[in-house]
């Protein structure tokens, strides 16, 4: 708590904390997208023919699709020919130890607060740091390899575990799923691949830090996590990006597959550049995240803290196909200034005795708009499905908006679906109480906001929970009081 106070003070007049550019030579493709770009990209990454075909199929389908405009967000039209689809650090990025890594790159990590050398000793977190499109270094790999866990960059996985990639790629989010998923399938540059073998409990939390670096590069990450029978993995994803004036598109795809008794916990802290106070610049974060509880008693849990991006548009979803499977979604979405967020989840109940929980906390400040949009669908054969949803919105200021669009579709009479939503502001009486106990107004508000989000923060791994609190304080600075 006191730590977040400090941060708040430190940053009361600061610009975006992570707004710096790393000066690394990168090799970039010319702007624009056509079949040749994809062929070149695929060749560059030495991909097998089937994957190229897969990409081309996605691209051809994408051409027939129209960009959707149904979400409750407004943004400048995106020119897909004005985007660089591939950029990589030029110096050969294959290292066995950190000494070989470009010092400037290491410096970047330090600024981000993730010194790799410390990571090894501390926290027990293996970091697969992605700068732009190529995975630069992967730690803890050997240790994980002992247990048979595969944790590597996507391109590496394509080379070394083609059978797994071939089997699972696109099995949860098909190439044709939606406009941005199709685009991603055509041009995805890199990402992470995780495979947890049968019965293995991943001993450490796996983490990837994404960074968007080269100006005008859209990042098209692809993450695939497969948890075999009875396995467990906790995966962390954290995002920061340098300050830019042009809008940058990020259209990632995340696919999770949990087989019998497997448990995947996926946590995100998203803090990309939100644009300045007037809404100039900032990242467009259009992500497709979906988990498939394929096996019996499997469980997928999404936790997200969204404070960044000019526009956030994502719905981490669970398809509860296996009997007795569990889907969870815990979210804190904070918007300030001109930020817009349209986020939520989809819980598709297919198997018997499936359960899902949705806890969504939205905070809007400044002139921002924050929408929760969620679907709970109980299919015809989903006996005894149970859903509980709670969507709360907190408004800070009279220029912002909070919106709730839940869809409940129930086709089975044994289902129990409960949804509740509230919208309010911080109570004058609560503030008064804390202030008469000697807290400054700003501290009081921070305390109330943190308490409001506690339910979600509890779901985060420890390191992330601390970071999330800081982020929250930074995101809301200037809007409180």
């Amino acid at each position, binding site marked *: 708590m006191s730590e977040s106070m400090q941060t708040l003070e430190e940053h009361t007049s600061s610009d975006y904390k992570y707004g710096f550019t790393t000066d690394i030579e990168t090799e970039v493709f010319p702007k624009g997208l056509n079949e040749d770009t994809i062929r070149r990209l695929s060749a560059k990454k030495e991909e097998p023919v089937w994957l190229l075909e897969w990409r081309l199929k996605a691209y051809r389908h994408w051409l027939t699709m129209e960009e959707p405009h*149904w979400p409750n967000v407004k943004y400048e039209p995106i020119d897909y020919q004005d985007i660089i689809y591939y950029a990589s650090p030029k110096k050969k990025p294959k290292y066995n130890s950190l000494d070989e890594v470009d010092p400037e790159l290491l410096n970047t990590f330090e600024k981000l607060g993730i010194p790799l050398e410390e990571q090894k000793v501390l926290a027990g977190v293996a970091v697969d740091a992605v700068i732009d499109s190529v995975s630069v270094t992967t730690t803890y790999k050997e240790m994980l390899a002992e247990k048979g866990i595969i944790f590597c960059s996507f391109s590496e996985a394509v080379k070394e575990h083609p059978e797994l990639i071939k089997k699972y790629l696109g099995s949860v989010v098909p190439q044709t799923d939606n406009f941005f998923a199709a685009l991603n399938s055509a041009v995805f540059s890199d990402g992470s691949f995780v495979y947890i073998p049968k019965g293995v409990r991943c001993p450490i939390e796996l983490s990837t830090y994404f960074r968007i670096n080269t100006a005008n590069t859209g990042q098209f990450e692809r993450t695939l996590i497969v948890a075999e029978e009875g396995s467990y993995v906790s995966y962390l994803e954290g995002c920061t990006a340098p300050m830019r004036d042009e809008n940058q598109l990020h259209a990632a795809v995340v696919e999770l597959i949990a087989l019998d008794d497997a448990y995947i916990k996926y946590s995100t802290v998203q803090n990309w550049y939100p644009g300045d106070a007037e809404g100039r610049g900032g990242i467009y974060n259009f992500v497709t995240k979906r988990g498939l509880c394929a096996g019996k008693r499997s469980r997928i849990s999404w936790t997200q803290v969204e404070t960044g991006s000019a526009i956030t548009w994502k719905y981490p979803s669970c398809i509860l196909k296996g009997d007795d499977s569990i889907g969870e979604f815990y979210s804190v979405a904070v918007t300030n200034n001109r930020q817009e967020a349209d986020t939520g989840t989809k819980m598709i109940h297919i198997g018997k005795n499936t359960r899902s929980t949705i806890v969504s906390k939205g905070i809007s400040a400044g002139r921002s708009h924050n929408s929760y949009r969620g679907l709970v669908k109980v299919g*015809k054969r989903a006996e005894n499905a149970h859903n509980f949803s709670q969507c709360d*919105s907190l*408004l*800070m*200021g*009279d*220029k*912002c*908006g*909070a*919106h*709730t*669009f*839940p*869809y*409940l*579709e*129930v*086709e*089975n*009479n*044994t*289902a*129990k*679906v*409960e*949804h*509740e*939503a*509230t*919208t*309010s*502001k911080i109570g004058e009486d609560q503030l008064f109480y804390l202030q008469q106990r000697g807290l400054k107004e700003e501290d009081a508000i921070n305390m109330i906001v943190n308490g409001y989000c506690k339910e979600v923060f509890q779901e985060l791994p420890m390191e992330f929970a601390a970071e999330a609190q800081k982020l929250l304080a930074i995101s809301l600075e200037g809007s409180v009081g």
Partner: protein
Amino acid sequence: MPLPAEKASNRISEKINQAMPTAIASDNIGHFIELYEKTKAHSPALPSRLASLQNRAAAHLEAMRFPSRRDEDWKYTSVRRIVSQKWDLGQVAPLNLTQVESAAIEELEDIRFVFVNGQFVPALSTPSSQWPKGLTIKSLAEALEGQDAAWMSAKLEAHAQHDNPFVVMNTAFGQNGWYMEVQKGAIIEKPVHLMMFSTGEAAFVQFPQLWVHAQPGSEFSVMEHYLPKEENTPHFTCAVSCLRLEANARVHHYRLQRESEAAFQINYCEVEQERDSVYSSYATDLGGAIVRNNLNVLLEQSNTETHLNGIYLINGEQHVDNQTFMDHAVPHCNSNELYKGIVTGKARGVFNGKVLVRPDAQKTNAFQQNSTLLLSPDAVMDAKPQLEIFADDVRCSHGATIGQLDESAIFYLRTRGLPLKEARTLLQFAFLGEVTSNMPHEAVRTFVEKLVHDKLYNH
């Protein structure tokens, strides 16, 4: 679904419709345009203002298409079965006093307006000499010449260009609209009871239109009562109502829909509230094959109160879709919404409730609750409660539940000696009782409860 007329041309157009889905819409609009022209030719001349307005509505309709499930507002309700039929306007059919009496609400002293197949039957209605003081009732054409002409024409103009084709259609066809005005300070105790009978083998369409203007400080109750048709042939009701509540007015608005399971109904209701007014709506849907109700309440001035109550009890292959829209445009208003329903058989219920709090509407208090019991394996419920909030100093919440009867409550009742069926029915009755208990007219409440009770016991 039997075709209205077994003509060869009809069957051909059916085939074409199946082959070319995009062509359906314009084709079906065409049916209504044809009907419009036919009706015009045979009906007595209307005042020129109304006639030109209706012509404009018809022209606008011609350029429209009927919504499909691809339209967000119609995502859960397909109107295909309604609009793919060829309809004729309803004709007056014989009806006698005994029939009216037997359909009346017991012990309710009312001001009766009887309609058969959409046509007004003065002989069976309460004569104007017995209307209470302070209440003026006029036909649409008459009212358009009166003091409310400006408000009504503005509304009609908007409806003629509306983006909902059913509203446009009602405007084009709505010749039998009724206007009710309650004078300043008048308290009308007896509810105006609109008894909508339908009878005969022929399939028909009707376009009722209701206007209510409650002047400052007045109190008024109105009930739209759609009675079941004996013959199992379809008819289609496309209704529009507009209510305006001036300062301090109170209006109770009942809509009791218990038509046969072959009936279609699409309702559109607009309410405007001025300062300190209280509007209460009590909508009960028991019948109908496909029913769609839109209820929009606009709060124009502060310190108003709005209560929206709804019941849906459906089974078989019924489909009932309730859409409510609470528009909090000004500060210091309260709204309270409670919709409860039981869906069994292969029925499908839809609830879409939206609460909008506009930027200046501080101190808004809005509450919305939708609860549904889903009691059979083939029943479906889709709920979409929405909040759109642009002001910060508000208290808004909504809740939606879809579930079953409480097993422990059933167990308790059975330990007290109630058979299973009895216990279940009692719990269902109590579930809906929360809504019926809000009805202020005891006779109406008893009547609705009896209907609910009968429907629960017979299925």
